Structure formats: structure tokens, C-alpha cells
């Protein structure tokens, strides 16, 4: 079985996997980073969102073979103590209901705000549209992104 070097949250991991293995499952099963979630496996729900070189990426669609030399950030690496402004905003607004989709929501929001620190309401809605929340905490997610944006700008 081939081996791959993956740089995740600043640390290099050597893992053994078939080359078509999605990053999502390597993170969860081999590296024990279970914060990144499985929702659909086809890039439709956003629960698996991580950052690859700072860009929000669906880890269920990224195979390990294409990630050499890239900087991968997962929810666990977004901040050391959960104090990224997006995480703080999520706390202030008390966003989660079941909580399962929220890692993906936070990763999408943080990448988005990095590009656009002062978004309009409709820009926020467009940016977050790719992340499904089955509990429908959407109003709170929207509010939290606004709160985070106000802290960042």
C-alpha cells in the first residue's frame, strides 16, 4: 500500500492508504481527528469541510494522492483553544443544536471571512449555502457569521 506525507495542523503525518482514499477518512480513522464529519461523501453537504492552503475544501472529495505539500487545517487546528473569532461567535450566539454539521460550518465561515472580512447579508448567505444543517440552525449561523465579521473588520 502506498504511503503519503500529509501536513495537517502544522504537523507532518506519514500515512499508508490506497491513493483514492479521501482525506476525510484518513483524518477520522487514521489520524484520530474526528472533528471533520461525514455527511454525504459526495461533496454536497459540507460537513467534511477543511482548509487546504487556506481554501475551504470538501475533504470527502480530496484524495490523499493530490495533497502532497499542501497545508491542511482541520477544525482542531483552527485555533489552539477554540478562540478563533468564528468559534467565539458560535459560542456567543449559541449556534449548535445537535452540533454535527458545525465543524464544517465553522471551517466554511472562517475561510470565507478570510477572503471577505466585511460581507453583506446576501454574501454571507451565498457563502454558507453549501453547508447543510438538518436541525436548521441557519438563522443562528447567519447571525454568528455577522458577529464574527464585525470582530474581524
Amino acid at each position, binding site marked *: *500500500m502506498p504511503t503519503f506525507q500529509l501536513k495537517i495542523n502544522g504537523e507532518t503525518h506519514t500515512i499508508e*492508504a*490506497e491513493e483514492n*482514499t*479521501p482525506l476525510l*477518512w484518513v483524518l*477520522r*480513522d*487514521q489520524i*484520530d*481527528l*474526528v*472533528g*471533520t*464529519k*461525514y*455527511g*454525504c*461523501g*459526495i461533496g*454536497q*453537504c459540507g*460537513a467534511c469541510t477543511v482548509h487546504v492552503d487556506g481554501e475551504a475544501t470538501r475533504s470527502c472529495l480530496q484524495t490523499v494522492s493530490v495533497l502532497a505539500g499542501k497545508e491542511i487545517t*482541520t*477544525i*482542531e487546528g483552527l*485555533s489552539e483553544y*477554540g478562540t478563533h473569532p468564528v*468559534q467565539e461567535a*458560535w*459560542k456567543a450566539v*449559541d449556534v*449548535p*443544536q*445537535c*452540533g*454535527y*454539521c*458545525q*465543524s464544517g460550518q*465553522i471551517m466554511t465561515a472562517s475561510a470565507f471571512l478570510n477572503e471577505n472580512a466585511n460581507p453583506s447579508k446576501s454574501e454571507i*448567505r*451565498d457563502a*454558507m*449555502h*453549501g*453547508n*447543510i*444543517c*438538518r*436541525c*436548521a*440552525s*441557519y*438563522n*443562528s*449561523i*447567519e447571525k454568528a457569521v455577522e458577529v464574527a465579521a464585525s470582530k474581524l473588520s
Partner: protein
Amino acid sequence: MQTSKTIKFSRRSFLQTSSLASGGMLIGFNLFTACKADIKPPEDLSLLNYNDFNAFIKISNEGKVTIFAPNPEIGQGVKTSMPMLIAEELDVAWKDVHVVQGALDNENFSRQVAGGSQSLRHGWLPLRQTGATARQMLINAAAAQWGVLPSECSTKEGLISNASGETLGYGDVVVAAATLPVPEDVELKDQKAFNIIGKDISNVDIDEIITGKSLFGLDYKREGMQYVSVLRPPAFGQVLESFDDSATRAIAGVNDVIKFGNKIAVLATNTWTAMQGKNALKAVWNQDTKAESTAFHDETLLGLLDGNSFETLRKDGDVKKAFADADQVLERTYESPFMPHNCMEPMNFFANVTTDKIELVGPIQTPAWTSTRVAELLGRDESEVSLQMTRMGGGFGRRLYGDFALEAAEVSHLAKSPVKVIFSREDDMTDGIYRPAIKYRIAAAIKDGKLTGYHLKEAAINGNMYGLIPNFFPAGAIENYQVDVANYKSNITTGAWRAPFTNVLASFEQSFFDELAQVMGVDRIQLHLDLLQKVKGTTDERIQYSPERLEGVIKMAVEKSGWGKSSEGIYQGFAVYYCHNTHVAEVADIIMDNGIPVVKKVTCVVDCGVVVNPLGAKNQVVGGVIDGIGHSMYGELTFKDGKPESNNYNTYQLIRMGQTPQVEVHFVDSDMDPTGLGEPTLPPIGGAVANAIYAATGKRLTKQPYMKNLDVEKVIG
């Protein structure tokens, strides 16, 4: 039912242990939870069997308080709100409380269930009683130590004081308190004295959730655990004839392939490999029972509605005569499809079956029932089964059924290894236990400008409505009233789906009343208020709803939504409903965007009695509303030749942020005992939306999903 302040308990009602090995006191008190809405606690709580109730408080010698949350957490917030009730009466500061998910405990927690929006309703008095009794025992211990009367002592946030100003912390007296007799007749706080209940309290797991800690069933790991992907019949009614697993076994990392019943388990070293292994299986299936399609379901259900073989669930007066005598009859047929639950976390469960014990870990709404079934399945004693509940990535009723736990247990037993069964999204959407497809025929008889008859007929796949629902509105308001049900037994499995039995009925009923008002030439709101007026003071004990409380939410919704005064281009639709003990009224504001209706805002008024945690409560209200909009507008699972025609989100639409309205929530100010919120705001919203779409387009929607049955091209405006 007003909150009673003093409750009598027998001594036996407390299971009390003396000091724990690690120090401190553990107080057990049984908590009754039920998933059926028709179970009511009696007015006199001393009549209850206290072996059914349980809650734990652990107080260490240092005064640290651990409160065990008894019920499964599916996102409805009970892991936060139930401990709040205990902490309030115990009189500790919330910041000093550590909440731990209680495990299934067959002796003390005998009915831990998440379902029916009943957790707070049933826990309200018993949990407060637990806290209050513990507090009294701590006071009694301190008083004994000081040589004063307990009545001369008071508490404040974990500190006991006497008249002389001396203080002792709870931790200082907890060991002594544990040996004291359990007091009876402990008084509960007056609501005005609440410090925790009624305050915004954050989700107790928020820190773990936002930093991606291991919380959910899918996250759970055990050394030596094998990952299992199961091949199940691709169509309902099929049986496994034969299979070829050679390609599967050739995959590196696949450890074994085990047939069990009508299914095949692939065991592997990780999830991806297990899934690949399952996909490489070549199986031959025989169609054993009928391969059903949606066309067949539609024809069958319409045939039932047209026919005469109904079971009558409620009959008041003579609807036949009322319809024969009517000046005018309004009759409509409403249709709704099958619906998968689509919990964001797919089904999964861990099991480790060994010769001396069975360990179960995972997301489950019915831990006790599931443990019993696992023991039965394996021919083992229930005392050998332990079940640890993980947090759940949504339940919505799907995780009541425990089928996934049974699979894990069986595979673990056969493989003699700890295993975790993981459903892919495709497995999850095609495995069944759906909300059934249901059709309604609703008819009203009008004579001399009055509503004289109402006949509700339901035709469902496998069955839906049960005894209590026919006693909801408009029962009691119309003299000649009848509810009939018929069903077709299918091989497609069905089950409870958030606000079961009412989640579709409410929308259609509210659409019907909207049209009825129009046909009768009366104001929509006034029609409801007039009907409710007739029910006030009723002696019919079967009536489930409160006409006064429905009236209350209607009036508040009219006021808060600006009903009848919306700006140009905004069309409003109204709905009001009682279910799961809670009264709700909703107004949907929509606009038409190039002929497509877009819900911009919903005003939701809720009467749920005391709002225990306003922050959590609002989440549930908003979540229910948006969930209801999404599924009534977009949700549909169709079948062809026994196979579900959609199995993932590329072909199935769940509501997303871009389609979400802003939901404005208003709680009726009340000191009545709390009722649930996990479900009640969902059922009526589809009706409010359909009524708003009528206001905008002149078209009555009678078939869900609404967006598919809108005839967009024919829309006006």
C-alpha cells in the same frame, strides 16, 4: 395545571447511597420519561411508581457538583435543560455545575427516551424535587453540625448559612448528609425566585462541538474495533439468494465478509475500506414480495379514500346527515410523499459482544428498549448488556428504532470482535423506516352560513394517526364530526418522523380552513376564534387542546405579524395548531420572485408554559419551523420497482441557508408547567406557507412537496 409547590413522596422513592468511594453523595431519584404523547403524569405524583424515575446529583467533598443528564441528547437541548431544573432547586450556581451524560442504567434510569417532546414536561416536577430534596438534606446536615434548627438556615449558591452568620459549603456536609433520612414534603421554589430556569443557558457541549472533539457515535473508537459496512437489499421485498465476495476479499484491509440474515457485513480496518468492500460485493437478489412503485402507492391510497373500509376513530353526531342537509360542501384531497429522516450523522453503532458481557455504545433515542432487544436477539440476559449513549447528530425519530444497534450486536457476536456498523448516506436514505406516504380527504358541510359537519379521512401506508389525534381541533367545535382511517400494509418500512401523525395533517388541515373561510365568506382568523369559542367550558374530557391557549396564540400572532397590514408584494399565510401539548400559531410572509415563492419571514407564537431555557427553546422553535418549510416545499422520496429513487443530496433537496426565512419567535408569558418544543412548531408551517402562496397566486396547493406541484408556469404575479 398550575405548578404545585409541595410534593409528597414516600421514603422508598429515593434510592440513596452513602459516601462514594471517591467521597461525596449520590442521590438517586427515578425519572419517568415516555415517548408516547398520550401518557400523562397524574396530578398526585405520589401515585407514580418511583422505580420509573431517576436522576443523579453527585456532590464531591470539595463541593463540586456533577449532574447526570438522564435523557438522550439529539439536539433538542435536554442535556442542558434537564440539569438546569435540578441545579435551580439544589441552589448551586450554574457555573459550578458539570453535566455528564447519564448512561443507560437499568436500575435507576429505567425509561430514558428522546421522543414525543416530553422530556421537560415529565421531568419538570421530579427533577426539581430531586434538587430540592438534596438541598434540604444538606441543610439538615449543617443544622445538625451547628446544633440549630434547619428552619434557621438558608442557602445561596452552594453555601449554607445560619442565623449567626456561620457558613458551611455543600462539600463540607455532603458526607453527613448522605446518611440522613430523606425528608418528605420538601417545598419547591416560587417561580419568581428562579435564578437559572428562565435564563439563557448555553449548550453544555458547546466547547467540544466547536473544537471538533469526539462526541458523536460516528466518532467513537475502541482498540481492536473493526469497521463494518453492510449490504442490504437494494429494493424492498427482496431476499438474498447468493453472493460473490471474491473481489471484496481481495481488497487490502478487508478482514472478513459475514452473511447475517438477509444482509452481508464487510469488516475492515477502516471505514473507507469497508465501504469499498461493500461496493465490490456481487449479490443476487430475488423479489420475494411485491416491488412497489409510487404510482401504485398513489392509486392504492386514493382508492382507499374513495372506498368504504375505514376504521372510525371518533364519531360525533351524524356527518352523513349533515352533508346531506348542507347548502354547500367543500371537499379536498391532500397528498404527501414518503420522507426519509436524513439525520446529518448517518446511522451507526458500536457493539462488543463477548462471552461475559455485551457493550453497546452509540446514538440511540431508546436505549432501554434497544438493550432489551439486543439481549433477546442474542439469547442473553439483559443484565449483561451495558449501553453508553453518545451525543447524536440528529434523531428526528429515526434513532428510536435501534435496528442499527441490533446489526452491530449480531455482527460483533458472529465476528467475535468489537465492531462499528456505519451506514453510508446512500445506506441511510434507502434502508427504510420512512415517514409514510399519506393522503387525506377533508370535507366540510356548510348550512345557513355555519359549519355543521366535518369529515376527515386518512389513507396511509402502514398507518399513521392514532387515538389522541382525532381529539385535537376541530373536535369539540363542530357538532357532526368524524375521523376515519384506512391503511395499506406495505413491505416498505415506516416509522415516526419528527411530529409523527401530525406533521402533514396540520398543514393540510390549515390549508383547508383557509379555503373554508373563503368559501364561507368569513374572515380566516374569525372563523377559528368563533369555533374555539364553542369549545370553551367543554365537559368533553377527550378534548386535548385548550381553546383559551389556542385563542391566545392566534391573537398574539395576528398582532406580532402585522396580519392584514403587510406591504405590497408581501403575501401572508396563517396557521394555528396544537400538538405535543404545545399551542402554536404561525404567519408566513412570502414574496414572488419571477413566479417562484420565497418565504422571507415567519412569525411564530408559542405557548409552552414556562420557558425553561429561552436560548435553547428558541433554537427548537426556529429549527422546527425551517425543517417544516424545507420538507413541505422540497422533500419527497419516490419508489420504482421497490427501490427508492433517490439516495443522496445530488438528487434530494434539503433546505439550505439560501432558502431560509428569518423566524421571529414570541413566547406567551406563562407560569404553567412547561411543555415540549422539539416538534410542535413543525406541523403547521407548511399550511401557513401554502396559504401565503394562495394569497400570492390564487392557487391552492394540495400536494407536497409544494415546489414540485406549484405549476410554476401557471403562476400569476
